[in-house]
């Protein structure tokens, strides 16, 4: 990872403390996410993976510490500059968070309509292009979110997250609730799009297969701290939770075949 250190850090956390009331979830954590990498964030249920993501995209105010995204401080940034920043990242929420009263095409066009002066014709074309990009059939455009399956909702949500061609993509458990085949396809999709669009991806997940297939580095949340490394590095970490996670039954099954590497 020596060459990664010289790269530009797109997300920079310093001494971050978050929590609710007196409960602390993250205790002075530091993290750098470099341009063009896929960082997976794992941790037990309730360890605050999603909270970390929400803090970075400024849905939650941290108690202490600084968050810098694309060279701009998130916590202190005033509204107009935040808006400019928000155009440069895309977020896929767990259930897709599509607007239920709009068709999929309209969902994708929401940011286009808000931030660009495109003609309706071009917006329709772009929406159709994004749908193809995430592997959805063209007739999905006219459908409402309630008519889509869970996997399709996530793909549609991804298409919306990619509408403004962001540099940075946040994914909150993209494969949760999908069958293994759909999950694999989604992993491939993320990897393919990440390469094609040169995205930096911040990926919160539970899924060991996704971790192995998609991520470059992994950040593990244990005891309110972050341990960062590649899978191979983490498997040598003595922490009992990390050992359990990567070398337990599921871990071994998912990572089988990596022994020989």
């Amino acid at each position, binding site marked *: 990872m020596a060459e990664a250190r010289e790269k530009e850090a797109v997300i920079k956390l310093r001494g971050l403390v978050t929590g609710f009331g007196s409960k602390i979830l993250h205790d002075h954590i530091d993290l750098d996410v470099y341009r063009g990498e896929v960082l997976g964030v794992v941790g037990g249920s309730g360890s605050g993976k999603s909270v970390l993501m929400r803090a970075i995209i400024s849905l939650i105010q941290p108690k202490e510490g600084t968050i810098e995204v694309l060279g701009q401080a998130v916590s202190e940034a005033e509204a*107009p500059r935040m*808006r*400019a920043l928000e*155009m*440069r990242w895309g977020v896929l929420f767990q259930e897709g968070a599509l607007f*239920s*009263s709009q068709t999929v095409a309209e969902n994708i066009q929401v940011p*286009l309509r808000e*931030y*660009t*002066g*495109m*003609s309706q*014709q*071009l917006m*329709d*074309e*772009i929406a*159709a*292009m*994004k749908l*193809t*990009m995430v592997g959805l*059939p*063209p*007739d999905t455009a*006219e459908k*409402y*979110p*309630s008519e889509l399956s869970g996997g399709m909702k996530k793909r549609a949500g991804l298409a919306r997250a*990619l509408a*403004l*061609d962001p540099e940075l993509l946040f994914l909150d458990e993209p494969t949760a609730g999908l069958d293994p085949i759909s999950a694999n396809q989604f992993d491939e999709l993320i990897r*393919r*799009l990440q*390469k*094609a*669009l*040169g995205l930096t991806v911040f990926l919160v997940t539970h899924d060991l297969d996704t971790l192995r297939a998609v991520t470059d580095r992994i950040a593990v949340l244990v005891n309110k701290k972050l341990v960062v490394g590649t899978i191979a590095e983490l498997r040598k970490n003595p922490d009992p939770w990390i050992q359990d996670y990567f070398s337990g039954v599921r871990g071994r099954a998912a990572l089988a075949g990596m022994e020989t590497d």
Partner: protein
Amino acid sequence: MTSIEAAADGAEAWFTLDRDDGRLAVGGDWTIGESARLDRELNALELKGQGPVTIDASKLSRLDSAGAWLLLRTRRALEAAGNTVSGPEVPERYQPLLENLDQEQPENRKSGPRIPKGFRGRLYRIGRTTVQNLKQAVSILGYLGRVTVETGEAIVKPRHNLRVTAIVHQVEETGINALPIVGLLAFLIGVVLAYQGADQLKRFGAEIFTINLLGVGLLREIGGLITAIIVAGRSGSAFTAQIGTMRVNEEIDAMQTMGLNTVDTLVLPRVIGLVIALPLLTFYAMVMGLIGGAMMCYFALDITIPIFLRQLNDAVSVNTMMVGLIKAPVFAFVIALVGCYEGFQVQRNAASVGQLTTRSVVESIFLVIVLDAAFSVMFSILDI
């Protein structure tokens, strides 16, 4: 407004078409912020009869998927206009992006019938709404039948499926909890009625008949009507929202798979609860209205309470009140029925709950007033 153009800080996107050379050179930042302008300019380009064209994109400084789409679209447009096209040659780092997008693009088609414009469009809309409303009326009538039959069954042979706890709960929710608001509004209406009546009747020296106006007005009509309208807004909407939310959460589906009859478990307690609660509420509203009127008479007209009571006794009989009260169970039945029916119509999205709650309130108030008019006609024919 913040726009993505303002956020971009790179080089401006440009393109030039050299017609003699057959060369379309593009450069700068072909990104989403520039795409609206590029789209307009590219559409204005005359492409016919150009012959062979090379798209030279080697001078691109940035390219994202919106820009790549425009490049590919331009190539397709050139080809469709009968030119042979080579390229676009893009810098190597953008090659994966272009390859990724350069798959078979689906035709951009819009499905579904388009509503014609002008007079025909208006006719079309009137027709569509009429058919929708008729369908709705038939459907609600069917529902009325089903609920009536099941209510009858539940009362004739009260098996375990008459949920007493649920009914009592509904009486509390729709009746007892509504006492403050219904009481206050009925009281105020009594005050207003007495004041306006006294003002007019004073001209004829007939202030004392204010009490007749109050008695007949409140007991026969206004007491029942105002209570029904408040309850429609308060409980009818709550029924729709509760059942609608259960539908959104798939709770209704879950109940059905467990073999629970949704009419038994959700509709009957609400219908029976409201049929019990509304007449009681109506009586309470009448009393509160008369108290408000009596107070106004005392202060504005110097009519003491004993005189008020004696005049009231002359003006109305128990029958007058019964005429008002007999309508209440019917109103209650309609309000609860519409509330529950619309709840079951909710689609599985968040907007639907709000829409149908509004519709439920409008429909039940409409029906209450229509029924009240029907009752008036009936009573006048029967000479009551």
